[in-house]
């Protein structure tokens, strides 16, 4: 068991003929991800690493029963690509590019809900179920199969957390990159609920950062959960009103400070970690 993806996921790469599409397709294949094809409108019939390239997502679904897509395209093409995948019946769309316009993401989310698809990102490092499938850009060196689920707004922090869990022997069930953009395809609440239902996951590490209200709103979900949640939030010392790399990482007005997020998460019952090394300590105390 795992959440959202496993070794049976049939993955397509939208933008497979581009430089980063190609580079990460090769890496994902090496990991064992079951990539069945890719799309690049106008390049149908070509091959990339022996994988067929199609003009449309519909062909990938019709010919190969693809159910998952990962997008490697410039931000301004993501609206079209994501909605194409959703309409074609893809169940999980992973949006790797960053800086997706907010209005585009609102529409993508609406169409996804309407058609029963899940969207992860924008600006996600992807999603990995270690030992089974790795979809996106996550470096496999950090990960090993195990019992802790992680969900994080940042790619680099996902790696550090996984690296810590791997080195201390806990390993990870599934790691979900929520994404660094201001409006995201999925929320902490939704991913936490999936982990709560997942047999393999014994505890969850939630990594948040300044900006937005997704962490604050996770409080209510955490309260209802049986499984322990360990939370870490970046930006305790962040300045006001200045965007820190991620499009979504900015404290605007009273909204979205790290302190308000940590307070809410703690009130929800989450265990707070200040550094990565605190995580295995807390797990040990919880006897996970």
């Amino acid at each position: 068991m795992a959440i959202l993806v496993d070794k049976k996921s049939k993955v397509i790469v939208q933008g497979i003929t581009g430089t980063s599409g190609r580079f990460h397709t090769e890496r994902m294949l090496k990991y064992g991800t079951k990539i069945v094809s890719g799309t690049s409108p106008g390049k149908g019939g070509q091959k990339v690493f022996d994988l067929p390239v199609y003009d449309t997502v519909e062909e990938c679904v019709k010919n190969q029963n693809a159910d998952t897509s990962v997008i490697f395209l410039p931000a301004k093409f993501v609206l079209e690509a994501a909605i194409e995948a959703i309409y074609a019946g893809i169940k999980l769309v992973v949006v790797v590019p960053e800086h997706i316009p907010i209005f585009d993401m609102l529409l993508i989310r609406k169409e996804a809900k309407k058609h029963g698809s899940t969207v992860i990102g924008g600006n996600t490092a992807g999603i990995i179920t270690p030992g089974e499938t790795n979809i996106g850009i996550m470096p496999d060196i950090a990960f090993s199969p195990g019992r802790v689920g992680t969900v994080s707004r940042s790619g680099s922090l996902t790696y550090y957390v996984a690296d810590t869990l791997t080195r201390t022997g806990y390993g990870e069930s599934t790691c979900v990159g929520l994404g660094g953009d201001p409006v995201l395809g999925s929320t902490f609440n939704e991913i936490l609920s999936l982990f709560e239902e997942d047999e393999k996951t014994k505890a969850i590490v939630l990594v948040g950062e300044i900006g937005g209200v997704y962490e604050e709103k996770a409080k209510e979900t955490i309260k209802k959960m049986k499984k322990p949640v360990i939370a870490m939030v970046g930006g305790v010392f962040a300045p006001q009103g200045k965007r820190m790399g991620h499009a979504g990482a900015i404290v605007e007005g009273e909204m979205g400070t790290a302190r308000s997020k940590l307070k809410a998460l703690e009130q929800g019952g989450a265990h707070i970690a200040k550094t990565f090394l605190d995580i295995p300590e807390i797990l040990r105390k919880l006897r996970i």
Partner: protein
Amino acid sequence: MRLYEFEAKKILSEFGIPVPQGKVITSSEQAKRFAEDLKKPVVLKSQILSGGRGKAGGIKFAQTPDEAYSSAKELFSLKIKGFPVEKILLDERLEIEKEYYIGVTLDRLNYKIVVIASSEGGVEIEEIAKKHPEKIKKIGLDIDEKLFSFQAFGLAKMIGIESSDIRTVGNIILTLWKLYKRYDAKLVEINPLVLTKDKKIVACDARMSVDDDSLFRHPELEKMGVEKRHEEGEMTQREKKAKEWGIPYLDLDGEVGMFPGGAGFGIMGNDFINYFGGKPANFMDSGGGPTPERLAQMLVLLDENPKVKAIFGARFGGISRCDDFAKGVVIFLKEHGLSKPMVLRMTGNMWKQGLEIFEKAKKDNPELFKNIEIHGIGTPIEDIAKRAVELAKKAKK
């Protein structure tokens, strides 16, 4: 990114929303001259990219041109939240009968565009929400839903607008929603919307903030120079230089130069430095998949910053590869040279190749590496952060 009040008002007025007669001035002499032309009492409003300017003394009233002159002089010598006042909006002073709030904003959690109106204007909407939640009326819309006239009129009615003004105010609400959509805005706000003593409806103050990531669709906003701003405040020279190089960068007050990979760790890394008793000199992010040249430029920014006493480097190669990271560091060492101690950790995609690049460069040019300590996955990142704080403290002495 936030627009200045005068920019927001210009857009409102282009869309047919009445704003006070006004002009942007950059000198006290201009203040006097324009007050003379207006032949009315005026209000002088400091133009800064931040809220709370009223409380900070950034707004002054003047009855005569001479008063306008001296008030402008005072404001130009002022710093509000650390931002110097370089421009003043000089508006005719309105005789106010009643103040309202109207705005359009984004509800990120519920994925809605929210049209808001309140019978309480002139204070921040967060404050109204706390003190008088019952006085706030809202309509939530999906991105592809339309705001109908009857809904806008209904909002106006709910906040107590008289029937004779329902169409005027309703149409302003409708227009505000239209321009929110037109500009890919995050926030458009008229606060207060004023009913004057002579029964006119005027947008007395306006605030607008647009989605940075949609600027490619709005060349007219790019022309205004909004991309070289923060949400609050203009950029420093070094921040502008970084922006030209495509590097997300912020100047901070400390002494540890931050050279992390990834924005998330960039943010958390700054916290770590603080937890371990240091202060970061900057925030930086390489963005996804930086070229070696860009990585070298990142180091140039830090090495040339006199505040930086030691550099903390971290790379967990995901979309960005360790071989490129190592190449970038080597380019920097060869072409620029490192004048401060640096400790770094590198692991992730292509870490072996990265390590080989370092080893080869070191063999060829050992003296280039005398200030650097390089670690791999075996050392926890916390230890690297502690070491950077230690090196910065040592260098300070």
